[in-house]
């Protein structure tokens, strides 16, 4: 091999295979220019290798750990997002309660008829229907009026009766 081909191999001597190293060794023995290059490369590599053992100690290691841990902690909730979360929680809770009441209204068994207490909350359709039957008809009822037709129990009862 000539000098041109050997020079790059000299630079990479430490990672060469056995056959390539033999070629370099043989060439360097007979070529003073390449020998000088090899000595220079070897001197430089020795310098660099000598720095491997230098320990660069981390100053204030405990503080460093603390800084890293502070960086990975999730940010605390701001006041706005806290109240936002409370508002949403209240909304969801209300909707769940309304859902439960509606479920009770629709699915109450027919046998479960209670006498409604005056001023009490009517929770089932059957109880509500029974309460309508027990009521005396209102003298002022005018079921032609759209508002009364929707809200007055007598009109509602008439409506159910007509449906049957």
């Amino acid at each position, binding site marked *: 091999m000539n000098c041109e081909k050997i020079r790059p191999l000299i630079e990479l001597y430490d990672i060469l295979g056995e056959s390539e190293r033999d070629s370099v060794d043989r060439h360097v023995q007979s070529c003073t220019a390449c020998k000088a290059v090899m000595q220079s490369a070897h001197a430089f590599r020795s310098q*660099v290798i000598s720095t491997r053992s*230098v320990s660069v100690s981390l100053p204030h290691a405990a503080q460093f750990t603390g800084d890293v841990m502070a960086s*990975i902690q999730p940010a605390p909730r701001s006041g706005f997002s806290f109240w936002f979360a409370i508002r949403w929680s209240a909304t969801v809770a209300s909707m769940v309660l309304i859902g439960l009441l509606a479920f009770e209204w629709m699915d109450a068994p027919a046998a479960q008829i209670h006498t409604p207490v005056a001023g009490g909350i009517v929770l089932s359709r059957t109880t509500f229907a029974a309460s309508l039957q027990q009521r005396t008809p209102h003298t002022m009822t005018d079921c032609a009026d759209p508002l009364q037709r929707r809200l007055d129990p007598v009109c509602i009862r008439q409506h159910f009766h007509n449906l049957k």
Partner: protein
Amino acid sequence: MPPDRESELIRRAVAGDTRAFRELVETHQQFAYAVAFRFTGHRDDAKDVAQEAFVKLWKNLNRYRDTVKLSTWLYTIIMNQAFDHLKSSHRRASNRMEEVQDKTILSDGVEHERLELLETISRLSTTLTPKQQSVFVLRDMEGLEPDEVSVITGQDATQIKSNLYYARQAMREKLERHYQEAKTIRT
């Protein structure tokens, strides 16, 4: 740290256990700082890079597979973080050479010669291209085998040889020039 213990800590940290992660940081922070220093040549930069690397490690820990060692994975993170840091702070420039010269003059006569040499070589290496610097630091300064360098940098054997060849040539010239200039300034 025994590999089993490390695996357990990683598993716990992936599940969100910050105490387990803290233990991992405490175990590897010295190593991370030393590697970051070799890539940046500056103590403050090395600290920043190591810190950012651990934050990145925490964010990506669920992607870790134990087919590679944690230290190998950390090498990759630190290396990429160092390149980002050098790029963002515009430090990968020839003006770093001036800093090296100043440092040499100021610390002339101080006994930490090898530490100075390490600082000088590290800072000079930041003027190489990232690919050249990565193979030079990992192979020559850290003493890793070419296979490990390949895993960390993602370069194949041919690329490693090529980049190492140009890096060594450039570094030798830079170091010689640096000493000559320092000698001229002193006289």
